[in-house]
């Protein structure tokens, strides 16, 4: 029996995003910018959740995919916006959407490049290798002058608005939900629970792991593009390991494998972040304590149905 709820939910969300956009001139600038950040974090958290939570592949390099998407989409708009701008706001909107998709594609390619060699690795080794890949992406960008090098890219057009952000967020949730409820989802869960048994059952673990990485990376790339056109300045330093950890905290707090959980966590943590801005010194300490306490006391996070990997699994 076909489940129509996800499709209806998607339409509702897109409509909601459009309505929000119409109201945006009424909104306080600061509140609007927080909403955009929330949207971007939702995309990041849900996409990482696909890899970490649903498929059990612990990835610490998500910021690298975000960076790839951010730089790719920024380069596109920086090069073509002067040409397209005179054609009006709809043309610019199309350019922006195109650049986001390109950013996502580049990030997905990176996801493929990262996923393939990492396939034989498990658990903590996989985590460190993905961290390494994330750092390599960052270092490559840092040393590429045409991407602005270590000094970053500035003057990016501020195309990101509330509609764009929440449309992408809704799309991300929709795609991940559909994927998880399909045969792919069964494959992901099989890989997560016991990879060796899954192989023995004839499940192509390679295929599922790669799909998870690539799709997760694609959406991280979209988030990166949104971010670049929001802050208007990106530097490789902003996509380092600590940024990956930010997203990991959201996924863990929300509950690995639970989409509504990570959405809630993304919202809560973004708000917490802003609220603690005046106490910047304490912010990361709060996050760190949160991480430690959650892992000890409630590893399934807020809404997760996942009680941590079985002992003995993961790692050589």
């Amino acid at each position: 029996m076909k489940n129509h709820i996800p499709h209806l939910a998607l339409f509702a969300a897109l409509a909601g995003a459009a309505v929000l956009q119409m109201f945006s001139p009424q909104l306080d600038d600061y509140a609007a910018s927080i909403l955009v950040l929330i949207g971007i974090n939702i995309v990041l958290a849900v996409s990482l959740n696909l890899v970490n939570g649903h498929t059990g592949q612990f990835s610490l390099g998500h910021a690298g995919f975000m960076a790839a998407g951010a730089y790719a989409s920024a380069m596109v708009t920086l090069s073509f916006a002067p040409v397209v701008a005179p054609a009006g706001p709809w043309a610019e909107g199309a350019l922006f959407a195109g650049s986001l998709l390109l950013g996502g594609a580049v990030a997905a390619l990176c996801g493929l490049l990262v996923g393939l060699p990492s396939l034989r690795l498990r658990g903590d080794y996989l985590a460190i290798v993905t961290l390494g890949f994330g750092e390599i992406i960052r270092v490559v960008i840092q040393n590429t002058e045409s991407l602005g090098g270590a000094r970053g890219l500035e003057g990016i057009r501020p195309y990101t608005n509330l509609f764009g952000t929440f449309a992408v967020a809704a799309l991300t949730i929709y795609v991940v939900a559909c994927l998880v409820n399909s045969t792919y989802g069964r494959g992901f869960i099989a890989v997560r629970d016991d990879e060796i048994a899954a192989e023995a059952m004839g499940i192509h673990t390679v295929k599922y792991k790669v799909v998870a990485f690539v799709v997760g990376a694609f959406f991280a790339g979209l988030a990166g593009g949104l971010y670049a056109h929001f802050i208007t300045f990106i530097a490789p330093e902003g996509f380092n390991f600590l940024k990956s950890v930010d997203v990991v905290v959201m996924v863990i707090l929300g509950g690995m494998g639970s989409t509504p959980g990570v959405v809630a966590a993304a919202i809560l943590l973004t708000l917490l972040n802003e609220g603690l801005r005046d106490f910047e010194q304490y912010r990361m300490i709060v996050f760190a304590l949160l991480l430690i306490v959650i892992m000890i006391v409630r590893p399934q996070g807020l809404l997760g149905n996942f009680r941590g990997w079985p002992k003995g699994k993961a790692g050589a």
Partner: protein
Amino acid sequence: MQTRAALLTGHAWCVLLSILILPVAGCKKAPTAGQADEIVVGEFGSLTGNTASFGQSSHKGVQMAFDEQNAAGGVLGKKLRLVVEDDQSKAGEAATVVRRMISRENPVAILGEVASSRSLEAAPIAQQNKIPMITPSSTNPKVTEVGDRIFRVCFIDPFQGAVLAKFMLARGWKKAAILMDVKQDYAVGLNEFFKDYYLKNGGTVVSEQSYSSGDKDFKAQLTSIRATQPEAILVAGYYNEAGLIASQARQLGLNVPLLGGDGWDSPSLVEVGGEAMEGNFFSNHFSAEDKSPAVQNFLARFREKYNEEPDAMAALGYDAAMILFDAMKRAGTTEEGALCRAIASTKDFPGVTGSITLDDKRNAEKPAVILQVEGGKFRYVETVMP
């Protein structure tokens, strides 16, 4: 396994949470600017982090100017309120804090920053939001090229690079090595302009190496430089790395003089570099040994207020604030267009760091001084006119 019920619950949660966001969105646009009887000015700088010395010095200079002005009755009959944001010396933070400052406080003008990279980040935002921005000490020419609402009160690197090159050649050092910080626009620009003048006037660059802000180990680059036997080394970067570079160079037996730009100006330079720093030179905006009454007066007041010696960043911060007040008075208003025109037409303003006139590119043409590290202090060597 996600059952239908679970799926429903999941999506219901999402909808519920989205509703929670609405109260945040509910904040209507705040009425513009604070109370009607005060003028709000924003300042952003690196108060913490790798280049904390810059932000803190600059802020002290700015704060002193504000306090003195308020004590004298404010400007245009209103009190001045300074809003300060810290960008933690991090790339990306400057853009974020300036954005926040603009949307929350709606200042009439922004002062900042010392580091050219971070000024470059924030300038497009100020330009777009129609808020004049004055940078006290960013020397990279690109900063004012961002737009006609961006100004600076110091000299620019084409001049500073040439000053250093001229000095090297005058001392007979015709073979130079370069060690440059690729993470900072300031350093990359300074290097380019230095080479421009140096190579055209008989110098040769025997080795060009690079590093990143935050690096601790420079022995590999210094060893390569050592093999090319330069007569002097240009260290284009900020004070922390400069100190470490000096110390490691001496450890490797590389005893030639090191030269730097105003990015070296900080007490941390000798704290980190120690004895290895002795005898090295750098170009700067002013010298504390300058006997002119303006400088001595400033030094005395600064010492009294903060119980420490000011450096160039503090002096420039002070000058930037004073020029802003002067422009407000001349324009008779804080309205953006008039204020910008007033700042742009600043002529012969008697600053602590010299007489300041803004040219048509909104930069200031001012002399530079060369200082030498001696006994842990910065001793004046000579002045170079533009």
